């Protein structure tokens, strides 16, 4: 099955990439945007989706500084 993993910086970790995007949007005319965070999307086809969290813990994310969310397709 097709699985998507969303990885984002942990809450509380300074996210200058997110901040840069947040600052750039008003300059393009988009107001009312806050709390922007930038992360990564990893897509996989797996036979056993129950193993995906372990993949996240061990490789796909760095649990010290990132949160991950597994989204079934």
């Amino acid at each position, binding site marked *: 099955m097709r699985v998507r993993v969303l990885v984002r910086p942990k809450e509380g*970790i300074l996210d200058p990439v997110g901040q840069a995007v947040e600052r750039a949007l008003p300059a393009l005319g988009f107001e009312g945007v806050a709390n922007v965070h930038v992360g990564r999307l990893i897509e996989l086809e797996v036979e056993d989706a129950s193993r995906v969290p372990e993949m996240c813990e061990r490789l796909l994310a760095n649990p*010290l*500084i990132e949160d991950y969310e597994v989204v079934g397709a």
Partner: protein
Amino acid sequence: MRFGVVRFPGSCDEVDALFACRRFGEAELLWHKDRDLRGVDAVVIPGGFSYGDYLRCGAIARFSPVMEAVTELAGDGGPVLGICNGFQVLCEAGLLPGALLPNVSLRFVCRQVEVVVENPDTPFTRACARGDRLSVPVKHTTGRYHGPGLAAEQVVLRYAPGHNPNGSQDDIAGVRNPAGNVMGLMPHPEHAVDPLTGSVDGGRLFESLAMVPV
């Protein structure tokens, strides 16, 4: 002292590290696919973009065969020095606490900075005195150290006031593991060993390692 300098696909400063090590002892390159450390006494993991920095810096390198042997050496108390990308690899491998995050400026920064020796009681800084200032270059995009709960004595080097190039927590430039035999730092001591190309302060780290009984 025999140094082993690991080379991954995408390593950039392995030859520079090799030259620096050779000024203070013998040194050879260790290919990432080899599990055999060939009896070296100390391992240096150099700077660069191992595996293209894919996924996260150092995330893939830490699974290479050579890293199994390095982990074993570290477990046995052997000295392991991670420089820049090497620091990132050691953090990903769990051999050092913490992680390296993108520079606050979001830009690559190549600049000569000064670091202060906080802990001279390590195999890497024995040739230094506490408070010594070393002039060394940094060159990285992802060097902001994040190490919650790091013990004070684990901080080996700190950027001198005004010299922090990346927003590192508490101006931390280099740390050691609890056992004291593994160190990682973002600055490049291997680029500070030749008066023709820069300062020679970086040589003190290799000099210290060369003093480790083998």
